[in-house]
């Protein structure tokens, strides 16, 4: 793997990769901090991370390139996406400034910071690139890394175990709910059901010809909306005023459905009566 990118022969190849992916990653990073939707931010971060994985491969770090894809993009970013989905995929952020001029000040500070760093790098006389050919020679990149992990950095490696236990314990503390009351048995559940107002199943949501969304309420025979037909979780998520697929309010949509239905039924009645007349 280390032989794939030899320093000299692939210099032009490397600069092409660099310029393409550098532009892409900076654009994605800028997009990440500027777009309003949280999901887009997460996906743009994925673009940056994948570009970095390619940079690692080019920089003679094949093992890290894979770890970047598997651990960072694969696990860490997916965790982010899970949380974004729980919080609400459509969640956007209001872009109104609470502290006036904060954004401009942050941008100015950022530009000053990066200009200072780049100027510094320009003045720093970096030694010539040695390349990792020698370091990767004895047994390859992975073996070289293993040698360091289990000798020079063995203590840090062992201490990370404390970190991982803390993370697992912390997630348990904040997310695990212990059952305080005993779990109701099947019998208790059925008895509670019989004693409740409604023994029969709840009405299904209004999946009609024009709508098949679970957040469309069903219509009762008298044309009114049945609140019970939509799961309260979904109704709450949409703030109670869920729009239908055509951008109408639920009441309007339900009324629309009702008129359509009535028209269809009336037409059918008309057709039926015509058929009856003909038969006579």
């Amino acid at each position, binding site marked *: 793997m280390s032989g794939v990118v030899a320093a000299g022969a692939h210099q032009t190849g490397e600069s092409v990769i660099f310029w393409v992916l550098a532009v892409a990653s900076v654009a994605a990073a800028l997009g990440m901090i500027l777009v309003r939707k949280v999901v887009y931010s997460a996906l743009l971060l994925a673009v940056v991370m994948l570009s970095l994985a390619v940079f690692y491969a080019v920089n003679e770090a094949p093992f890290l390139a894979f770890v970047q894809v598997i651990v960072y993009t694969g696990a860490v970013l997916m*965790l982010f996406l899970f949380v974004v989905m729980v919080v609400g995929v459509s969640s956007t952020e209001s872009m109104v400034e609470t502290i006036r001029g904060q954004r401009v000040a942050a941008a100015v500070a950022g530009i000053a910071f990066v200009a200072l760093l780049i100027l510094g790098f320009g003045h720093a006389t970096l030694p010539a690139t040695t390349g990792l050919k020698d370091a990767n020679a004895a047994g390859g990149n992975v073996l070289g890394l293993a040698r360091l992990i289990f000798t020079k950095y063995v203590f840090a490696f062992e201490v990370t175990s404390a970190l991982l236990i803390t993370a697992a314990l912390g*997630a348990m503390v904040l997310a695990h709910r212990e059952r305080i009351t005993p779990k109701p048995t099947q019998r208790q559940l059925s008895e509670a059901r019989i004693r409740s107002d409604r023994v029969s199943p709840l009405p299904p949501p209004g999946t009609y010809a024009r709508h098949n969304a679970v957040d469309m309420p069903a219509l009762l025979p008298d044309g009114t909306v049945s609140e019970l037909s939509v799961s309260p979780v979904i109704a709450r998520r949409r703030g109670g005023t869920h729009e239908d697929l055509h951008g109408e309010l639920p009441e309007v949509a339900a009324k629309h459905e009702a008129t359509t239905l009535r028209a269809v039924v009336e037409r059918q009645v008309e057709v039926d009566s015509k058929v009856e007349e003909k038969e006579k």
Partner: protein
Amino acid sequence: MTGHYLVLSAILFTIGGVGVLIRRNAIVIFMCVELMLNATNLAFVSFSRMHGTLDGQIIAFFVMVVAAAEVVVGLAIIMAIFRSRKSSSVDDANLLKY
């Protein structure tokens, strides 16, 4: 090429830092911190190649492990506050001040 990578990592690091300052959704702020850590890793990896030692790659590897643990704890805390307030905006977290 090391200089190029360094400049790129500085730019990405700064973008992440500015993101932390201007965004108000806790999840996005945390993603910006992750961007900063990634930029740091890029610097480590390119320095590693420059010096011809694998130490930089090891450090980048450790950073990934630490970041993974940090993400677990951080997202658990953010979820906890989201569940009690139905908002993940840091502007709504304003009970403590003065």
